[in-house]
Each structure stands twice: as structure tokens, then as C-alpha cells.
């Protein structure tokens, strides 16, 4: 084999390696996107409506009926201890960067996922939270949660 042929072969092998690299990147992106619940061509606003629709169906009790398996709700608990805290029992959905807390007075509070501590993640002094939405770094909605209020030991009825 001549030097020229060797150079051509090396060039071909390099190109093949680059193609394989690109394929691996594309595959990784695809897998990552699947884990984030792909939106297809859906806009962020549309995805938000779809998520809340799924959550409403779940909250109306449609889970468990007719074999429906679509689950949009995550489990989050509010512990009214001396220092009230939100406990994200299921952890955070994959890719969560932003968390929106919907409060009882109709206002919203944005929290960065990095502000949570502990395992499972917790948030101190969250306020009167009723529902929660989880978004990724591009603010694409990922999941929704109804907050379950856990009574403190020996406490009276929850208001």
C-alpha cells in the first residue's frame, strides 16, 4: 500500500469516526429528549395547557379507571412543623430546573431547583402552596403536583 493510499484510508477512517460521533450525539439527544417527555412541535404555552389538562383528569380520579395510565401528578407534601417545609417525596422530574409554586392567594412564587436541599429534596418556608409545576431549563413544563398537607403530630385540624 502506497503512502497516498495510506493517507486516503486514514482520511476515510477519520470521516467514519466523525459520522459515528455525530450519530452517538444524535442518539444521546434523542434519549435525553425522551426522558424529558418530548413536546414535538408543541410550544411552551401549549405544553403547559396539556400538562394541566392531564393533571385535572388525574385529580378527577380517572387514574385506575378503564386502565388509564397517563400520570401527570407528582407527590409533594407540606409539613407544617415549626419551620414549614415542602418535601418532594418522588424527587424531581428529570431535567427540572424551575419550580413554580401556586399559592392559596392566587399568587405564584418561582424557585430554582438548585435551591432545594436534602434527599428527598425539601424547601423551607414555602408559604400556603396549593399546587406546583415543574419546568426544565427552557421553561418547558414537565409535571404537576397537588400538595398534600401532612398534619403535625398533636396538631389540631388543618385550616
Amino acid at each position, binding site marked *: 500500500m502506497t503512502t497516498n493510499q495510506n493517507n486516503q484510508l486514514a482520511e476515510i477512517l477519520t470521516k467514519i469516526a466523525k459520522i459515528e460521533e455525530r450519530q452517538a450525539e444524535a442518539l444521546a439527544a434523542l434519549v435525553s429528549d425522551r426522558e424529558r417527555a418530548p413536546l414535538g412541535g408543541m410550544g411552551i404555552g401549549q405544553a403547559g395547557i396539556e400538562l*394541566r389538562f392531564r393533571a385535572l383528569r388525574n385529580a378527577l*380520579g380517572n387514574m*385506575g379507571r378503564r386502565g388509564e395510565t397517563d400520570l401527570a401528578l407528582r*407527590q409533594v407534601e407540606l409539613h407544617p412543623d415549626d419551620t414549614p417545609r415542602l418535601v418532594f417525596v418522588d424527587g424531581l422530574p428529570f431535567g427540572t430546573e424551575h419550580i413554580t409554586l401556586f399559592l*392559596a392567594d392566587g399568587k405564584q412564587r418561582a424557585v430554582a431547583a438548585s435551591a432545594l436541599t436534602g434527599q428527598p429534596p425539601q424547601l423551607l418556608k414555602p408559604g400556603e402552596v396549593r399546587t406546583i409545576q415543574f419546568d426544565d431549563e427552557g421553561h418547558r413544563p414537565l409535571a404537576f403536583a397537588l400538595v398534600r398537607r401532612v398534619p403535625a403530630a398533636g396538631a389540631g385540624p388543618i385550616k
Partner: protein
Amino acid sequence: MFRTLAQLISDPTLKGGLAPDPATTFAIHPIQLSRWLEEIWAGGGVASWPQASATPKALGDPAVIDRLKLPDNLRDVGLRSGVRPTSPATTQPAFAGPPALGVDLGPLPWEHMIYPYLVESTGILQIMAEVVRRYVVGETLPTPSVATVAWVRATEELFFRDPPLFHVGGLTSQLRPDAEVNRRNAYWRMFGCDLPHPPRGPIQGQPWKQDTGPGANLRFIELWTDLLRQVWVGIENDRNQVGANPTDPNYVGYLCQTIGELLRLRRRGGLLAREEFAYGAMLSWFHLTVEFDTAVVEDLSAGAGGTGGNPADRLAAIGTRVGIVPPRHARELFELADLLSPVLWFVELDQFSAPANAELLYRSFGTPNPPIRATMNRIIDLWQSATGDRIKDSAVTTSRSAGGAPQAQPTRLPTPTSSTPRFNPAVPAPLGPNANGASAAHRP
């Protein structure tokens, strides 16, 4: 609400995967269930869910919840429900400490008014009322189990006598004494529709239509049917890569906006909110009764194969026991009730009025089975089957009659053809004369 309670008993955080527990639900004392409804009302339901718009639109005025609920301390201390049964209940569940099941879980939504309307259209209330009546006045039905006796007692206490004073579900009074007329009045105002069967008892004329003034949504069914047609056009043409696409997201959004405005018009100031809550709870009780092979279903030998069976089959079997035949389309009506409730909530909350958001009703966005589009597709199938209105064939029919290509959007907006709405969920299968055709026929 009672179907949600049955779900919560086996699955307190609504995480899915577990079947509801109707037996334990029916074992709870009726006074606890009555108080539990009061607690759920105070949670605010869909009015407490995050809204996309800055102006709250749920229930006409979300403040209606706070203004009509029991004072917090009275409700949470003196009149609390203590509902937190363990599943399965072998005896009557104990009175548990607070908070009650479901009350601790965010704002639990309740069903839209379309749910009780469609479920009642199956004739379930007339059939089950007759079952209860026969069990309490004689022995013409098979011997009941203790669980059935408890169900009969709870059913009579909760739905066939006046609720406790000052209860949010107290919707009968000296001014509107007939509960059935009151329900028909609410359905008429909201959807411009009557139930497909005549009322029980000696009721002259149609008193539920009196004094409603201009307050009946006579255009609802017409607009809704047009929306289904337009959504089907969208689904059919979603994958068009070449050629014309007659889908018009602006028109779909306009129809959603118009339907939403109609519904909100009837709710101004929070009107009909209590009725919607109470009737939804009532019909969910009876729906739950025939959704599974419960004690009363088994005692009446009306089982339909455990959890896989269909409520319409159980209802038909019970109906034969008491001489009332439900409409042929009861099967579709039960399923439609579940599917339409969240869709109409979202239409009413203006979620689909923008053309971009209206696309959610029919576009797949490259995903295999997007939930909103799949729901609409199923609704169209069931609606066709229940009403005989060929939504999916409309393009072909129009093409043949007009001799040209079908128009996705009419050149002018549709107007009512008469004051009488043409929709009737039981059409073309009205109840036979030996069924609900006359009140005397209810008790052969």
C-alpha cells in the same frame, strides 16, 4: 366526587395503579359523607387551580366558594367528617382524626355540569330510585345483604330527603320543592337540553323552563357539534404534507371561545355553582354503584364481570328487575361523561380560545397519542354513536349534496333553526312506553 373518594381510599395520593374501592365508600356513614362534601366544597375545586388568564373565570366568580362555605372552625372542628377509612372495610369505618381524606390533597376538583347531565341521561337515577323504593317498602327484590341495606340507607338519606340545614347541597326549599325539576332547570339553563326521559311523578308541563328568562344556552349543542366537526377536520388533515388543508385553527378557537362565553354567561356571580357541585356528587354516587360489581349489583344478580364490566350492562340488568329500560346509548353516555367533563372545564376557562391553543384539540405534534387530541377523537366517536350525528361523515355528505368541495368554515355563522334544541343524547333511541315513557310504567 364519590368516585374520586373511592379512588382516594385505595390510592390516597392519586398516584394511579390501584382500582377504586366502592365497598368501603358505601360503608361510610352518610352524615360523614355529607360533611365530607362540605369540606371538599371549601377546598375550592377547579377555582383554586392555576389559571392561565389574569382574570379568574372559574365558577363565574371564584369568591362564591368562600361566601357559601361553612365557617372554617365550625367545619373543621364541630362538623368535620372524619372520613379516612382503611381499605378494605369489613365494618363501618371509624371516625378518624383530621384531616379528612382528599381534604389534605390540594384543591380537589369536581365534575363539570355536563357530567351529571350525561349520567342522568342514562336513566340511572330513575332505576336506582326505584330499587331503593322497593327495598324500603317491601320485598319484591331479592334479599339484600347487610352491605346493600347500608347502601340503601345511605342513598335514601343523602339523596332522597332534604340534606342537613345550611348544607351547601341544600337545593330544595318551599320555593323550589322538587329536586328533579331543579336538576332539569340547571341542565336547561346550562346546555339548553332536556333529559331524554320524562320526569317521575305527576309534573304538569315543563316547569323547569319557566322563569328562566333569556337564560338558557339554546345554542350550546349546535356550537358544540360544529366544534366536533371542525376538530375532526383537523385530525383528518393533521398529516397533510401536500395539497390544501381545510383545518382552520382560528375558527376552532372561535367556537371554543363562544362556547366558553355561553357557559360563563350562566355562571355570572357564581350562579349554578352549588347545583353543579351537588348534582355531580349525586350522580357520581349512582355511577360508582354500577361501575363495579358492588353489593347491590350482586344482590340483584346484575354483575358484569368485575372491574372489566361496563356500567351500562349492570344498569340494564338492574333495570329489568324494576321494569325500566335504560336507553341503548347508556354505554356511550357513561364514557362521554368522564371525557367531556375536563374538556368543558378547559373550554370554559378559555384555555383553547387562542388559535395556537385550539390546535391542541386536533394536532399530534409528532407524538404518538397526545392526550387532548386522543380525548377529542374518542369523544367524536362516542358522540356519533350516542346521537346518530355522523360527525366524521359530514364532509362526504356535504360534498354529495352541494356537488363541490366541503367547506371547513361556513360562510356565515350557524343560527338556531328553532327554539327547540335538536340534541337529545338518547336519540334515536327514546325510551319505550314500557320503560320511562309514563310515570305509571315505572312501577309495573
